[in-house]
């Protein structure tokens, strides 16, 4: 599209035809990739989008021969004119070092912890004799400088643990571009990173890629990232590409029912009113694919139709450059179901607060390793006031390490408060004895982020859900097995699954078990710690809707802890933004999203990728410098000032008070609070 004349002359960097990958698992052959074709041209970004089990990561490993030997690969993979499938081990190795650069998901584990970063960046090139050992360090310094790492001469000799998460991922990018590759494969490169850091990393990646005119295959589940960086998009489902086309076409006029449903199911920053329209069911497992179209059981158009059930549709042109694999591409999706419940509901502003947190501080001692002396304090939470009224959702938003989870855990009594008061229904919780605390906790329950590790794998679902009843000695009194079965109905699990073990449930179902477990004691407050962060995109909407329904039905209050700003906008009545243990801005949802006044809130909102390609050029993004400082050594004055684009001399000495901002119901802690002027010179300077 953007380089039509060039692609015509140079041809694709990577060309995949009829790629099939099967794994042999205990004498069974499990098809993970089932016949896909795609090309990537120089200086082009192809995003492969899909949920877990769609085959997107396996595809990226297959094209470079990195799959284990248990994988059977069929089809043709031509990289730079050379056939990869069936190539000799040494040929593949050379190709990987010379033509391909990789950026993997978790920068915490992709670097070797016991080797120096500089060595890891260049050793591939040294091993292939493309770089002399004597020149390796100088080259590593140069590469680190290219990815915006300050003081690269010192940094090359450091180990990965001395780097922060965002710096590690930039070091991985330095490694990926060390050989000036023709192709960069990035597999969920920013999924493990915070939004402000994600913006830094994507910026660096885009700049280096443009310089080298490399082709990029970016694999992600995040439609916001896709809209921001892709030239073309391939949507994968059940091991096949179901739709492909230019990014604008995919977002403007998606044709495959899955693409359309996916775009409809994600919460958006620009529209918080509508209820989400989730895709029913869950993505298919590669070993249990339906016979016809893999999407048929969940499809609003084709579900139950004989042709869809028997015949797998092939990818065919639906517009210029756009292809979709569906028998009924021309049929419109039925309109979103009208639901009785929709946000925003009127918030009872007169209702007394159910939960009140006042001046909360949670400080953890830092112990020296041997003599256990306290050598310092981590100020995880440093003076926080929040309140949650009956039936209301207050969200705590912030990046990792800001203290939002610690607040939730302290409210539950899992972590002792260092100072301040927590009142639940008028009763102070901080100085309760063990027995009183247990009784009081009955009315507040916690829902955890990871539904895979928060359920005991050796207990059947029934016992997991009923355990709180037994702990509180209320099993008989509250209805025992009958009550458990009712809760299964309430959270949308079938009663037939009562006796099954957690491993037999999907991620979304497991989170439903977690919700049932939290609800069985009839709590009034739920603390939800990133309840949808570990779930697939199409499942998130189901759980968010369930949470909204339960809130309306049972009059629950939610303290919702999350980093995803779209999800927060969707579910909240009020929002508090946290940075380094403090609340920097708090207001009603609409005020905070439409008129943010604190520079950190403004940066967060601008860094969050909007799932709309048109927004890419609309406004310049604020890319924050640096990363969140350690809460063990917070900066003097305003804790945000080292990264703030509005900071003045006053900010580095005087901590701003948390006070109302005139004209709005918002409270904020900033000397220079005010609306963002998109044309201001200060902003242009910090933007890249």
């Amino acid at each position, binding site marked *: 599209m953007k380089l039509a004349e060039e692609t015509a002359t140079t041809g694709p960097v990577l060309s995949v035809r009829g790629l099939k990958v099967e794994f042999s698992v205990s004498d069974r052959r499990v098809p993970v990739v089932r016949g896909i074709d795609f090309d990537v041209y120089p200086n082009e970004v192809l995003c492969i989008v899909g949920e877990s089990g769609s085959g997107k990561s396996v595809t990226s490993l297959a094209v470079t021969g990195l799959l284990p030997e248990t994988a059977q690969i069929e089809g043709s993979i031509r990289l730079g004119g050379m056939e990869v499938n069936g190539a000799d081990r040494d040929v593949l190795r050379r190709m990987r070092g010379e033509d391909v650069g990789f950026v*993997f998901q978790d920068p915490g584990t992709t*670097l070797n912890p016991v080797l120096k970063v500089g060595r890891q960046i260049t050793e591939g090139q040294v091993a292939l004799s493309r770089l002399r050992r004597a020149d390796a360090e100088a080259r590593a310094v140069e590469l680190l400088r290219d990815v915006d790492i300050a003081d690269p001469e010192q940094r090359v000799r450091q180990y990965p643990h001395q780097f922060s998460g965002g710096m590690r991922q930039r070091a991985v990018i330095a490694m990926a571009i060390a050989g000036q590759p023709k192709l960069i494969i990035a597999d969920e490169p920013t999924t493990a990173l915070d939004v402000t850091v994600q913006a830094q990393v994507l910026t660096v990646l885009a700049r280096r890629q443009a310089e080298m005119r490399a082709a990029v295959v970016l694999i992600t589940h995040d439609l916001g990232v896709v809209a921001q960086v892709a030239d073309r998009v391939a949507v994968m489902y059940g091991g096949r590409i179901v739709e492909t086309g230019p990014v604008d076409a995919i977002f403007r006029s998606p044709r495959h029912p899955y693409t359309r449903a996916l775009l409809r199911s994600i919460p958006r920053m620009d529209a918080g009113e509508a209820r989400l329209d989730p895709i029913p069911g869950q993505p298919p497992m590669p070993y249990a694919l339906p016979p016809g179209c893999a999407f048929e059981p969940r499809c609003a158009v084709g579900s139950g139709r004989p042709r869809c059930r028997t015949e797998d549709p092939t990818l065919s042109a639906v517009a210029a450059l756009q292809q979709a694999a569906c028998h009924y591409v021309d049929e419109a999706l039925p309109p979103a179901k009208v639901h009785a419940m929709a946000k925003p509901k009127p918030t009872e502003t007169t209702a007394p607060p159910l939960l009140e947190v006042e001046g909360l501080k949670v400080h953890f001692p830092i112990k020296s390793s*041997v003599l256990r002396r306290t050598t310092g304090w981590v100020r995880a939470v440093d003076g926080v006031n929040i309140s949650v009224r009956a039936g209301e959702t207050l969200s705590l938003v912030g990046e990792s390490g800001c203290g939002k989870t610690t607040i939730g855990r302290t409210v539950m009594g899992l972590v002792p408060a260092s100072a301040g008061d927590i009142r639940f229904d008028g009763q102070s919780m901080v100085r309760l004895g063990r027995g009183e605390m247990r009784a009081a906790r009955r009315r507040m329950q916690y829902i955890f982020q990871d539904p895979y590790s928060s359920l005991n794998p050796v207990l059947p679902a029934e016992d997991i859900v009923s355990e709180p009843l037994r702990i509180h000695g209320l099993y008989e009194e509250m209805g025992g097995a009958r009550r458990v079965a009712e809760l299964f109905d309430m959270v949308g699990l079938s009663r037939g699954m009562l006796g099954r073990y957690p491993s037999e449930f999907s991620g979304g179902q497991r989170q439903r078990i977690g919700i049932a477990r939290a609800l069985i004691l009839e709590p009034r407050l739920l603390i939800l710690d990133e309840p949808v962060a570990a779930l697939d995109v199409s499942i998130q909407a189901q759980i968010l809707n369930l949470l909204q329904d339960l809130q309306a039905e049972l009059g629950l209050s939610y303290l919702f802890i999350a980093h995803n700003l779209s999800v927060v906008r969707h579910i909240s009545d009020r929002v508090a933004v946290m940075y380094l243990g403090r609340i920097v801005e708090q207001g009603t949802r609409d005020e905070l999203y439409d008129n943010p006044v604190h520079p950190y809130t403004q940066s967060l909102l601008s860094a969050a990728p909007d799932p709309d390609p048109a927004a890419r050029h609309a406004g310049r993004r604020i890319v924050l410098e640096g990363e969140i400082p350690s809460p063990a050594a917070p900066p003097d004055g305003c804790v945000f000032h080292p990264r703030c684009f509005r900071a003045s001399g006053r900010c580095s000495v005087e901590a701003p008070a948390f006070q109302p901002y005139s004209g709005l119901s918002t409270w904020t802690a900033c000397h220079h609070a005010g609306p963002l002027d998109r044309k201001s010179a200060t902003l242009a300077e910090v933007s890249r």
Partner: protein
Amino acid sequence: MIGFVLRRLVQLVPVVLIASIGVWAMLYAVPGGPIAGLVGENATQEQIAAVTAQYGLDRPVVVQYLDWLRRAAFGDLGISIYGREPVLDLIGQRLPATLHLAVSATVVALALGIPVGVASAIYPGSWIDRILSAWSALALGVPTFWLGILLILWFAVDLRWLPAVSGYVPIWEDPIASIRNLLLPAITLGVYVSGILARFLRASLVSELRADYVRTARAKGLPERQVVGIHIMRNALLPFITIVGLMMASFIGGAVVTEAVFTYPGLGRLLIQAIGTRDYPLIQGCIVVILVLYVAINLAVDVLYAYVDPRIDYG
């Protein structure tokens, strides 16, 4: 680092103190004592009382212990009741022999354990992997005394290549004679633990093989030799060093059976003899020295850790 070593050495004091009290208490809890053996069967009550008093064993137990402790604090571990020699001298004669055996047995164990562990981890399910399973079970299942006796029968009695009775020859005096003497006991001990080491290394390597950084290393075009030899090995060796350290420490006092089979003059046999005769000062001295060595080896392992793993910082 120096601070860390010093702190650890200071921590050694209460450990030795508690252990010595424990040993003292146990010695007095079991019936009998050294005197019966000294005076003979026909001794009169008066004779026994006289000898008891001579060695100061008629005093209250606590007084005896404090007396021992006071002397020990100044480096005097007392006089052996039977050997009539200073305990420190007796231990000093045996200690080099024990260290020779411990080091050579560790060398044998590593020489057998590392290649087998690496090979079976890289080729899981292969013949070498299957042999490892059988062999480590065999290595652990075969009693050391039996293997020792078999080795003596083959190499000393039948082939006459090596001595049947292993004396102690310092390696710096006569390396060949020293190795000839050490070879059979070192193999006996080394084979026994090499099975454990190989298993342990295999498990450690297999878990590292699945790590993300291995995929990264392959993705940048490194040859498999470097992926395994540098990237994986460096990480897998971390837990392995701990096991090797513990194993080596166990050879100091725990090689009794092997020492007995080869009549090797090690610390373990000295301790057993001392226990047999209830030679209180010698038992106490042996235990303290073994304990100190045990802690010293583990300290050395911790120091080594900091060199292998950059994430460890003892400050």
